[in-house]
């Protein structure tokens, strides 16, 4: 892993450390590199056809010891001790169990303390570490880049390829620096940074790039917050996002079940400390963002780039010069049932969803609990809280957060992807409007005809109190000491 690091970006260093075989040729004609994969995460939805492919070809799973599976997309968040009611969901879960048994894959099933959303489980077990290559048949694999890993989503054919060879055949990505300097204002979070980035560069702006999030605002973030940012790199079109590892990363990892120990820890940290972009490195593109000017951000449309500050109004299609963007805005407003010019803060919601691989970690739950503590839920709003993993749920319960949510009138559920994509029974009804801490506001994403506004946990919590899209600054103060703790 040594070699010449001068002029290299973080992404290039990690890439080069994993080249099994360099592609022949130069420039545009260069063939793909063969890249070694350190960790393969598996779930029930994108793996059955890959396992079947291995079976049909008589191939083995090359590295069961670098593979781990969990059940997340289809799993119910209520009555998890009963058989899954939906038969096709049940079959898919049972197929994963059979495949994992047959191929010797470690599986964390529903009911297991380590079960949960695949992108919450990997980091929490300490399996995601700096400088690794991590893949999964899920586009939000970019989450793991928060540790300085090169992590990206793959399709089922590639899942099968990794199973059979522990490698992927890939052309190098271009690199883009996302420089975020300054201090976030109270009530503004990592989610607002990434939504602002997506609105700035567009849903295709990161296409072909690895994004590296840099600058003082990123350095100041916790690992949970960095995961939120890297998670949504894909919403900007980038397959991967990364943050260089630092003391925050090492402290998060230390003592986790699969983190190195003793002399191994020292050797690992010594290597991890080399994982940063060199001063003389050049990015293929750079973007600059001033964190101190950011406000809570919220989407109004049906792609994650269609967002504005919470204090703004729903835009008009005429605000867009580009014909495609204008047509997309028209269509989005019709689908969302919104009129141009309506202040975002006057939009009433039916449901608040706190969950998903973007925002369901313990820190997200703490932030939301701090805002609702001592306050009343708006009577017509349903709030669902779905911890990212069984472990997060246990941790939250140990801290009494479940009581805060329950007293507020929120539903306290079991772990899974849940209403982020509605593959389980947690779905919006047609026309139902939701403030959601998830990552995609596509048409029908959370249920056929459902209308999604992407928000941070802070905005989600404040919205549940007020009933319309809100930030904590819109709420009446509470006298209860516990509730006045900083929400930032």
């Amino acid at each position, binding site marked *: 892993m040594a070699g010449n690091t001068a002029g290299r970006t973080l992404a290039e260093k990690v890439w080069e450390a994993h080249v099994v075989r360099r592609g022949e040729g130069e420039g545009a004609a260069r063939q793909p590199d063969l890249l070694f994969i350190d960790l393969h995460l598996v779930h029930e939805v994108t793996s059955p056809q890959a396992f079947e492919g291995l079976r049909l070809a008589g191939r083995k799973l090359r590295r069961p010891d670098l593979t781990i599976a969990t059940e997340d997309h289809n799993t119910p968040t209520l009555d998890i001790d009963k058989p899954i009611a939906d038969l096709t969901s049940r079959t898919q879960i049972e197929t994963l169990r059979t495949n994992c048994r047959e191929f010797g894959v470690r599986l964390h099933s529903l009911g297991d303390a380590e079960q949960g959303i695949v992108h919450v489980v990997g980091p929490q*077990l300490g399996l995601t570490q700096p400088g690794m290559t991590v893949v999964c048949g899920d586009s939000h694999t970019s989450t793991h880049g928060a540790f300085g890993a090169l992590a990206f989503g793959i*399709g089922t054919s590639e899942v099968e390829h990794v199973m059979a060879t522990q490698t992927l055949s890939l052309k190098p990505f271009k690199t883009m620096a996302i420089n975020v300097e300054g201090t976030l204002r109270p009530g503004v979070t990592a989610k607002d940074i990434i939504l602002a980035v997506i609105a700035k560069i567009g849903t295709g702006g990161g*296409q072909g790039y690895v994004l590296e999030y840099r600058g003082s605002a990123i350095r100041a973030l916790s690992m949970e917050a960095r995961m939120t940012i890297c998670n949504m790199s894909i919403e900007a*079109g980038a397959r991967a996002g990364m943050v260089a590892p630092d003391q925050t990363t090492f402290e998060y990892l230390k003592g986790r079940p699969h983190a190195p120990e003793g002399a191994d820890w020292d050797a690992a940290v010594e290597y991890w400390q080399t994982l940063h972009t060199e001063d003389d490195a050049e990015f293929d593109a750079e973007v600059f963002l001033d964190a101190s000017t950011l406000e809570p951000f919220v989407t109004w449309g049906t792609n994650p780039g269609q967002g504005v500050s919470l204090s703004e109004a729903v835009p008009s299609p005429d605000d867009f010069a580009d014909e495609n963007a204008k047509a*997309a805005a028209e269509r989005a407003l019709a689908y969302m049932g919104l009129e141009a010019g309506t202040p975002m803060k006057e939009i009433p919601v039916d449901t608040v969803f706190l969950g998903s691989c973007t925002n369901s970690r313990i820190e997200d739950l703490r932030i939301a609990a701090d805002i609702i503590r001592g306050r009343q839920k708006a009577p017509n709003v349903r709030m669902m809280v779905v911890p990212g993993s069984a472990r997060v749920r246990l941790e939250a319960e140990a801290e009494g957060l479940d009581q805060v949510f329950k007293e507020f009138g929120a539903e306290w559920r079991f772990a899974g992807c849940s209403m982020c*994509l509605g593959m389980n029974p947690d779905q919006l009804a047609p026309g139902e409007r939701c403030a959601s801490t998830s990552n995609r506001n596509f048409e029908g994403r959370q249920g056929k005809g459902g209308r999604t506004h992407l928000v941070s946990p802070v905005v989600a919590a404040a919205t549940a109190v007020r009933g319309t899209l809100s930030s904590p600054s819109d709420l009446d103060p509470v006298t209860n000491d516990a509730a006045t703790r900083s929400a930032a």
Partner: protein
Amino acid sequence: MEKFTTHTGIGVPLRQSNVDTDQIIPAVYLKRITRTGFEDALFAGWRKNDDFILNQEPFNRGSVLVAGPDFGTGSSREHAVWALKDYGFRVVLSSRFADIFRGNSGKQGLLAAEVAQDDIELIWKELENHPGTEITVDLAAKTVMCGTITAPFEIDDYTRWRLLEGLDDIGLTLHHEAEITSYEATRPSWKPKTLPAKV
């Protein structure tokens, strides 16, 4: 994988940008464990609307989809490619594809051809003015022909070669198994393993 050289079929104008994979195939259809039989799932939400292009003759018999920019964004689901193929599509034209979708297409023999937006606009007009017009896509020459329009398209050389030859990726990689084994021997011992499980 079947070889792809040229294809001729009815063009379908889909005047929309940011066609995400949740639209191409909604999540509810991802519960199946097979790799085929997804034709009913393609654009399932939009097909409930009678005005949708695939509900109109002769576009319902189309095999070349002509879409707006940023086609295939969002979820990595390869089911999106399977659904397009199962319905009968062999080619998608767009000025910009999401990376994962383009990768998945290449693995499954669906040609994702990048055509300049100006040419897409011309092809849309041609297809709308003359429904049923066939489009011919020549992978070796990297050209698209529709009526009097001839437009070049982009595709990376490696994917093009694999499609033209109909080569299976895993088979290609396994030629280099010795190199994978040598690489594995150089990995530091502190790199994490999932087995034995520690919790």
